[in-house]
């Protein structure tokens, strides 16, 4: 018995290129109902129009999204109705299991250990060459110029010069060199400790017995060390939780940093403003051991 299109629906074979064996049949779950399909299509068009209107008239995201959702749901329903309206079959198709010529060649080459080792060695040599070329001729980062010098005032981000009295006990501020480009490597954490600092802090670089400054660039991965805990005078970096003891030369207390933060030599000028008396004693950014800024 054949259907409207002349296909023999009781036939066990299906298709011709290649011929397939029918394994199972799944009859259509529901007949195609054209009226409901047309209705859903209209809803979809309304939804699309509503989305365009919502975007054009700058409605809230909720309205835009809701109208788009209506259109998407309607189209999905239409697709489902169409898919459920046809019979489905599961077929068995013979598989071409022979290895193709290219795959056979690759397989044969893979079975020759000597050839594989030679190719691996060649790739290794090329890789090493690239690395060596990069090391020798690769672009170097330009060193930023000296950002701090003797006599340069410490200022806030807005350029206001700082006095020692601006920082209360347990307080801190971010300071920059006066009239600079606000380079990241120049940022400094100015803190007033709640206890006397001890070596390895450079005591000559401390003002008012407790006011000192460290580089704000974390010696681990360069994030700004912007948190200060006054109970134990610890500087805390939020990225990977490195802690530095501000009363002991910012040596690493805990966490992944292995080098202390460089201390900025601090002084007071004739007008009572805080100044740097020299540059940092050590490089600020993580550089290779063999390179020094000075």
């Amino acid at each position, binding site marked *: 018995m054949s259907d409207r299109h002349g296909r023999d629906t009781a036939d066990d074979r299906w298709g011709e290129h290649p011929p397939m064996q029918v394994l199972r049949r799944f009859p259509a779950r529901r007949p195609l109902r054209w009226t409901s399909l047309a209705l859903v299509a209209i809803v979809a068009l309304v939804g699309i129009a509503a989305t365009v209107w919502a975007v054009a008239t700058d409605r809230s995201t909720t309205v835009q999204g809701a109208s788009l959702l209506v259109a998407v749901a309607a189209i999905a329903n239409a697709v489902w109705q169409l898919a459920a309206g046809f019979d489905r079959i599961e*077929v068995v198709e013979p598989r071409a299991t022979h290895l193709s010529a290219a795959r056979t060649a690759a397989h044969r080459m893979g079975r020759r250990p000597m050839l594989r080792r030679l190719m691996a060695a060649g790739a290794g040599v090329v890789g090493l060459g690239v690395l060596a070329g990069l090391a020798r001729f690769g672009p170097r980062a330009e060193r930023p110029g000296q950002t701090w010098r003797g006599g340069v005032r410490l200022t806030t981000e807005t350029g206001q010069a700082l006095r020692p009295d601006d920082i209360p006990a347990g307080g801190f501020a971010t300071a920059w060199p006066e009239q600079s480009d606000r380079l990241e490597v120049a940022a400094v954490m100015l803190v007033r400790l709640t206890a006397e600092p001890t070596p390895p802090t450079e005591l000559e670089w401390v003002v008012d017995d407790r006011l000192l400054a460290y580089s704000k660039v974390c010696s681990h991965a360069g994030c700004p060390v912007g948190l200060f805990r006054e109970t134990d005078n610890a500087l805390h970096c939020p990225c990977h939780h490195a802690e530095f003891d501000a009363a002991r030369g910012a040596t690493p207390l805990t966490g992944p940093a292995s080098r202390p933060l460089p201390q900025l030599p601090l002084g007071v000028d004739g007008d009572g403003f805080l100044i740097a008396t020299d540059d940092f004693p050590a490089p600020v950014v993580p550089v290779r051991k063999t390179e020094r800024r000075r």
Partner: protein
Amino acid sequence: MSSVPAWLADRIVARLGPRPDRPGRTTPLHWSFLLGHLPVIALVILAVTGLVLTLFYRPSAAPVLYDGAHELFRGRELPHAYASVLHLSHDVPGGIFLRRLHAVAAHLFIAAGVAHLLRVIVTGAFRHPRQVNYLLGLAILLAGVAAGWTGENLTYSLVAGNSLRVGYAILSSVPVVGEQLATLAFGGPFPAGETLLRLWGAHVVVLPGVVVLGTWLHLRLTRRLSHTQMAHPGIDDRCSIVGEPFWPGPAARLALLSLLTFGMLVIASILVPWSDLALEGPYRDGYGTVALYPPWYLFWPEGAMILLPAVALELGPVTLTNVFIGGVVVPGVVIAGAVAYPAWDGRRRERPEERHVCQDPRAVPIRVGTLIGATVFLAVLTIAAGSDAIAHALALPVDTVIWALRAAALLAPFAAGAVTAALVGRPPRQLRPAWSTEGGSDDDSRASDGKGPLP
């Protein structure tokens, strides 16, 4: 019945109904095979939304005056990139919706890619002749992760700028060639004017090119080799492909999945304020905030850097730091493990016999245990990235949390892997003909017709 004329109904049935003359590829069926389609849907959404986003974004950190609708920033000088994103979000109709769709589609791409990878590994779909396809899939996933990282940081917000800073430090930490690599990638010491332009080129041209080309090759190869299939009783799956003709069943199913996924992403965009930048503010040199995180799929290298103790190994002129080991070595080992896993899994297989049948996880308990162990390890590292949030929630010092997570990272993977392998490897209580009884890595020469006795 129907009020539609018969010729129209016939036309629709002929076009959309079953086609015995052009049935398309025989497509095996299983719900887990749909996981691989989700990244394709996400990719299409990313491409379309991304194209519109390129019309509005400016890849420059130079300061400009923002004069738009957002009260917090009106009349202030902001980096051009941040200002352009703010302008798109608050001054352009539909802008924030577009950005949220783009962000949530990126999250779906990676999450679904990982789920698909897990399915492929567990069912052994990486075995011959699909080795190249497996590597292609890994490459697509890695390029997707890189695209996600560069994309999030293009906004140049406070969090994004600091994430770039950490990326620069990771590249710089590579011995011998670190500084050169970092300068090549970022165009100068951070923060350099060139950086955003290079990242934008990577995010818009290079990485999508890799992902699209990789996906096209991946799908083409899947089609040529035929998709893996579940075992069928009474049929030799090595010689036969069993499934539905691609048209209309699987085609309709994939179309429906695409529409439903798109709908889910739209709902997520409405309900969740993804990528709401105004709260973070622009990046200012030397400033950070407490909540500095990379995207969630890069929590695990961040967690590795947090959990590893302070390291300064000096080998001659070279210093290996915690940043290098946590940011380069650990991810390198994980990726190398994923690439090399098929070779280790097939170490005792002699002949490269073609394998097209999905393996029952219960037949490969060691593989499932290894996979669970690796997943638990990555999960502990991911959790470690939020150590400060956990410490705050539990009112503990951050140091305590970090020590607890260090112990967990060393012990939990092995414990979880061993327990899983033991549980999965128990013999099933009865023969289930729907599953293949094909053995594990070492013995695959048996016919998988499901009628033989259990191993």
